[in-house]
């Protein structure tokens, strides 16, 4: 792949830097509180889409459980605050820790599985988390949810910059990870696990690690989000929420750096616009996902990348893709 050019920036790739630069001035252009709220939610999904893309797009582990880890991050901070009055400043990092450790566990469990089995395990995991949380009334108050305070009386614009900072942090982490030696190991897992193992890549370790990192990021997203909407509820962790995250990453462009960012903004803003005309927004997006994987598997950003690439040659086949072609 054009790895060298893609990872040319020191801290961040040029495309993401440009997107963040535009995002940083958005609150100046968008004055209505309602739309500022929409942008904050877009950033929340952006964090999760980046985290899922690291796991699915770059490491090849197709989980469907990002929402479950967001739920864990949200309830860790929510429960500690509701019952013990713990400050979000402590609760959110603890939520990241809980989600990250649980992610390590799920990663360890899925080490020997491939393809659809990882997805199945993650779906089962998501249901376990959400059933346990919505049925443990004495701790979580079930579907009623827990009221939690906001983050130090921030304004909408304040929230926007907190979420943006978190998204930039997550994206820089992903970028630095993928650029490092470990990043090559992780991408080798996706391309051909067997070949990677035969070349001495510690499959167990890197798979577990990438699960942990991705889950911790989702936990961060959930922890921040719960103090934005000020209600911890099981709704944060449904399979439909996971579906939305997957949709954003796929439509924006899986296995690209800028794709999930573009996807999150595009889908979130478009869904508000569709809501205005009374359409089921997920109906349109699900169709978009199907059309995207069928005809534009690189998503929006992948399409742009293909256009930019000069001279125009067909995308280089990966080893795994070649194996798929040769197999029976």
């Amino acid at each position, binding site marked *: 792949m054009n790895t060298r050019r893609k990872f040319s920036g020191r801290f961040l790739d040029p495309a993401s830097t440009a997107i963040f630069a535009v995002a940083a001035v958005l609150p100046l252009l968008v004055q209505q509180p309602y739309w500022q709220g929409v942008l904050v939610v877009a950033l929340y999904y952006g964090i999760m889409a980046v985290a899922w893309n690291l796991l699915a797009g770059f490491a090849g582990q197709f989980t469907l459980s990002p929402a479950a880890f967001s739920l864990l991050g949200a309830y860790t901070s929510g429960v500690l605050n509701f019952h013990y009055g713990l400050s979000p400043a402590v609760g959110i990092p603890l939520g990241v820790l809980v989600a990250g450790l649980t992610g390590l566990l799920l990663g360890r469990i899925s080490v020997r599985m491939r*393809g659809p089995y990882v997805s199945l395990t993650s779906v089962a995991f998501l249901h376990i988390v959400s059933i346990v949380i919505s049925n443990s009334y004495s701790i979580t108050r079930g579907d009623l949810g827990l009221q939690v305070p906001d983050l130090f009386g921030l304004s909408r614009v304040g929230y926007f910059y907190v979420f943006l900072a978190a998204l930039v942090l997550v994206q820089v982490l992903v970028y630095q990870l993928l650029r490092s030696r470990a990043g090559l190991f992780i991408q080798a897992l996706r391309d051909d696990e067997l070949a990677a193992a035969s070349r001495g890549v510690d499959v167990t370790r890197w798979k577990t690690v990438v699960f942990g990192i991705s889950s911790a990021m989702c936990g961060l997203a959930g922890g921040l989000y719960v103090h934005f909407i000020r209600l911890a509820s099981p709704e944060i962790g449904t399979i439909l929420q996971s579906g939305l995250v997957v949709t954003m990453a796929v439509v924006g462009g899986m296995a690209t750096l800028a794709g999930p960012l573009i996807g999150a903004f595009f889908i979130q803003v478009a869904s508000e616009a569709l809501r205005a005309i009374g359409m089921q927004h997920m109906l349109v997006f699900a169709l978009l996902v199907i059309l995207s994987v069928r005809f534009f598997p690189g998503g929006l950003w992948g399409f742009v990348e293909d256009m930019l690439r000069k001279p125009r040659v067909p995308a280089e086949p990966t080893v795994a893709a070649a194996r798929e072609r040769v197999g029976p």
Partner: protein
Amino acid sequence: MFNLELFINGIMTGAFYAVIAIGLTLIFGILKLVNFAHGEYYMVGAYAYTLFAAATGLSPWLGLPVAVAAGAAIALVMERLLMRPLYQGYTNWRMMKDEYAIIVTFGVSLFLMNLATQVIGPEAYQGPELLQRSRIFVGPILLGGHRLVSFAVAAGVLLLVLLFIHYTPQGQQIQAVAQNRFGASLAGINTARVSQWVFAMSGGLAALAGGLLSPMYLAHPMVGMLPATKSFVIVVLGGMGSVAGSLVGGLIMGVLEAFGAVYISYQYQDVFGFILLILVLMLRPWGLFGERAREL
């Protein structure tokens, strides 16, 4: 203590689980992919059965073939438009087949759920009962009339499916393609047509279960989610691709749930199934009945 009533109830629920799960395992058998849209075939069946009776006022018995046809039709369209590329000239350098299959079936699932919400609405409808008599004694056990009749239908269909797969040429072709698609095509089997058959059967069976269960579990856009996740558990338990495995797995699941809900915990009963799923995938990934020589 052995409770016969619970056992019978478990077996009856299990038969429906088996009807749903066999379709999932058949698709896995021939294409080696997990169909995340399977629950939506169930949903389509539940709606078709319920709305047919409500719209025409005819006997609910006529709603059953309508439900089967609707489920089979949806599955056939999906096979033709989205699944066929998987085995006829898949040329996608960006995504592996597995990845494509997971995302596209998950996308279809989201699409159909939201289509139902948009077109029919989020409210739930109750399906009509096949038999109006409310209670029938079978030996010492009291059963609802509809429950008994629909169980008989489900059991009959299960028997037919098993006979079909083992004794008809078409069924044997399905087995051949499941064993080796390339080899089967060398032997003159039209593998594309076999795939169509399997998708139609899978959709039809799940839709039939959706119709039969709609008096109890209703018809609404999300109704397929729970049966689908349960059939994932069953199919993994029985061994991916094994028809007999999913039959036995379905019955085991039904009985375990019936006892678990009473003796262990009603609130957390669904959790046990999912923990079982993860444990089986970890420790015995080929399932209870599947063949061992398989790469996970």
